[in-house]
């Protein structure tokens, strides 16, 4: 019962988004601001997680909506409107992360890197730190799967990649995270022995 109500609500939102996209394709500015209002918070939270900067996140959301404005006419309904919009968000975020390697580094809290006198980090902190050091495509895959909770088909649509590529990216991301967690566990062990 609850499940079917949820599906019906989603379908309703999808059809409203679709109607807005059709209006945007006809250059209806009110429709764009309406879609912007609907997606602003979700998009902002998503890109903020990746950039850790309010100003950059706001700028990215603006860029995403601008791309929606320009390409709404190309949307053919092959995916849900939200998947299509997050596909644009993915590409914008990937471009930003790929180009500004120095900026990405600066987002990391370098003063919190492991050191002998620092208190040991909780497991979740290590995991988060590990995710931040993944290559952009793998990091975004992890965010799409675990933050947005997308299926592999949806991730493939958002990233415009074959499903096998998506699975391979997650496979490599998982392997790197595993290695990092093992390294952090060793570091924590030796920290304990030193005390």
């Amino acid at each position, binding site marked *: 019962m609850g499940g079917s109500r949820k599906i019906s609500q989603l379908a309703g939102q999808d059809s409203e988004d679709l109607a807005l996209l059709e209006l945007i394709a006809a*250059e209806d*500015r009110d429709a*764009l*601001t309406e879609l*912007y*209002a609907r997606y*602003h*918070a979700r998009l*902002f*939270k998503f890109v*903020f*997680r990746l950039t*850790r900067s*309010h100003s950059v*996140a*706001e700028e990215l959301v*603006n*860029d995403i*909506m*601008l*791309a929606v*404005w*320009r*390409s709404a006419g*190309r949307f053919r309904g092959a995916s849900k409107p939200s998947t299509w919009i997050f596909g644009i968000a993915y*590409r*914008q975020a990937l*471009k930003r992360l*790929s*180009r500004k390697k*120095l900026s990405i580094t600066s987002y990391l809290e370098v003063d919190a890197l492991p050191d002998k006198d620092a208190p040991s980090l909780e*497991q*979740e*902190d290590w*995991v*988060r730190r590990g*995710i931040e050091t993944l290559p952009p495509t793998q990091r975004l895959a*992890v*965010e799409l*799967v*675990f*933050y947005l*909770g*997308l*299926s*592999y088909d*949806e991730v493939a649509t958002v990233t*415009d990649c074959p499903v096998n590529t998506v*699975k*391979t990216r*997650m*496979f490599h991301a*998982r392997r790197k*995270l*595993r290695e990092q*967690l093992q390294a952090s566990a060793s570091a924590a062990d030796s920290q304990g022995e030193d005390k």
Partner: protein
Amino acid sequence: MNQLPQTDDHEELVRLLPWYVNGTLDESERSRVKQHIEECAECRSEAEMLTEVRRAVRNGSPAPLVPSPDKDRLLATLDNTGRPAMRHTWPWIAAAATIAAVTITVAWQFGPRPAAQPVLFETVTSPAVNQSINYVLEVQFVPGAATETHGKFFESIGAGELAVPLNDRTYRIALGLGPVTLAELEQYADRIESRPEIATATFVAVQLPVE
């Protein structure tokens, strides 16, 4: 219990673990993974780790204070860029590109092609750089973009058909820009990248003039 996963199923199912953990597999896949996990220690351990990853991602850093949607800013950006963006915002770059592309393309067709280099923006940090420097922009079209789309794009930025193809969807154009700042270069690449037919646009090299 089987400690040594060795079936073909293992290779297939281990790659489904992230989606088993996020709960988006269909019933048939979910049940196959669940049964496999009960028998395979390696996959059980992987699933536990991925559950930890999911928890860390979802509990991650505190939710940001989301600003109110700034519709005025969005509409102002729209007014400033319009459709297509290049013609209104970057006429001076488009004009410069036309001139530079002619010169540099001839050089590239007959001379040694410059090796691709990583973007070295940190070397271009002065407020304004010398006018005679050429910036090599590499653009990659989205898969499936028709050849005529490529041509229309280059026309729209004033480079005509003079961009140098590296493969079927990647080209390089040398832009002889006037005094520009680092931020302007990045904004320019961003504008190019925001176009639906473009997958990436990156300045790959700074080409000093030949004396």
